[in-house]
């Protein structure tokens, strides 16, 4: 069993040493605020990036003619062979 560390001589420093300051200090408040900002910014970025990707892909698929137009008309015979067996990014004619 290791019991020969000079614990008494440095435990005070080790216990209270936090980067940017000890508990309930300006440093820990600042770190907390920065962490919350990163968390919120990441969520907003996820929303923005996904919206961009989905919009682009939906436009590509509609432009490729692989899907019927979103109209009130009933599906016609032209849709009998839908190209939906799997992913495709072919922009088409």
């Amino acid at each position, binding site marked *: 069993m290791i019991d020969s560390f000079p614990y008494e001589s440095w*435990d005070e420093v*080790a*216990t209270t040493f*936090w980067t940017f300051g*000890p*508990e*309930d*200090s300006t440093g*820990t*408040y600042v*770190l*907390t605020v920065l*962490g*919350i900002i*990163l*968390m919120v910014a*990441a*969520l907003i970025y*996820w*929303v923005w*990036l*996904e*919206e961009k*990707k*989905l*919009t*682009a*892909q*939906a436009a590509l*698929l*509609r432009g490729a003619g*692989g*899907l*019927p137009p*979103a*109209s*009130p008309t*009933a*599906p016609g015979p032209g*849709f*009998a062979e*839908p*190209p*939906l*067996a*799997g*992913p*495709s*990014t072919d922009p088409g004619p």
Partner: protein
Amino acid sequence: MTSSLASMLSALLAQAPTPEELQEQINLDSLVLLEVFYFFTVVIMWLIHVGFMAYETGAARRKNIMSTAMKNILTIAVVTPSFYYFGWYIYGCFEHGGPAEGHAGPAEFPGFCGLTAPWSAGMAGNLESSLTGHLSLVFFLAFLLFSWTTASIMSGALIERVRLSAYLILAVVLGSGVWIMDAAWGWSSGGWLTTNYGFHDSIASLVVHGVAGAFALGVLLNLGPRIGKYDREGRARTFRPHNTHLTLMGLMLIFTGFYGFYAACLFIQSTVFPGWLNIYLSPTTLGTIAMVITFGFAGGFTGGWIASRGDPFWTLSGGLAGVISVSAGADVYHPSLAYLLSATGGMVAVWSGGYIEKKLRVDDAVGAVAVHGVCGFYGVFLVGIFAGGFPTGLNNVPSSFGGQLMGMLAFFPLAFLPGYIVSWLLKKANLLRVPPEVELEGLDMAEFQQDFFPEFERVPEVVVLPDGQEVEAAPILIEEYTRTNGHRAGAPAERR
């Protein structure tokens, strides 16, 4: 000779530790044991999330596998910081519905509330040897894993049409707000439901599973079914999972992780008999709950198998449902009682799953509302009948059917309404659901621009009709898309 022995004896006695030193050593060993115990429950509980990822990915169609898996992975990225900054504080300070005594928190644990703030001593590396010192970090981590679990329960229900970002926002609300509020109220020794009504939910049938299921139901009502899930008569079709083996393995991993979940729901009190306490600080033992979870699986598999007439997916889901059904009383139940009750739980999951899918026409892709939601509520209901009178919480209020009912009445709106309202807001902002064109093609191409099985030949997607006939899916999906003009829940017409 005699003097030599006497001097040796006196020298030994001089070196012998005093009773105070021995007590200090015992206390330190006890704290180390406690810290190591919770650390490894956290490690084992990671398997729950490995399992959820495999389970849901296997249940998804080939075109949606990575978008499904990324939900589970990114749950960790968003729930961890939000639970650190807000969730743990809610648990520490809202036992009476709010921080009744300001930052000091509940009278039962003075100071605990303040220690749950993210800038406090208890929330970072420190050398304070006490339950509210460095040991609070492993408690925090165990609760964090519970939080991931609540979000993961919801994630499976939403697959193949929800936006990843929408799911992440909902995961934060559920994992770092809703569930931990109900835990503060009814899953702590000082919670108002516990101290006033004797509400008893030892291993979180309702506070984790039931609440996550109710939240998911609120989201599903706004999200709507996958394109092609229901025919014109409202009859349910079935989409073939791309890998049922992966789904079953995922469930088995979840089961393994649940042993860690069960263990993490106990406190060690290694210096006082019997050494273990439940979440309400009532005595129990690790062996007691280990027996209940094991017999819960046995009964749940049996009930699921009987009710589903041998369907593999529902047989395994029945195991999980069985355990959830007996978790609330796992510190009390006899193994035979757990076996019997969990068998009914497995059946309840199958029947309620069919009702939700076919009658309510709610497209829950993995049966999460039935397995977790319905059986979570069923579990606390059973405690009111089969464990009535057992003392619970700091006030030792006997558990009762009325107390359990009070918990159910408090938690259903607490869970359902936030899920419904937040998903409704996302729907109104057109941020809840992917565009229908993307849904038909598959989410992976839009989200990641690649096919994640490039070496395998692509085969036509199939769908199982209500009469059991298996047919090619594409014509049906196109027809359903066209019939609704591409307008689905969460995708207003003006955006396409």
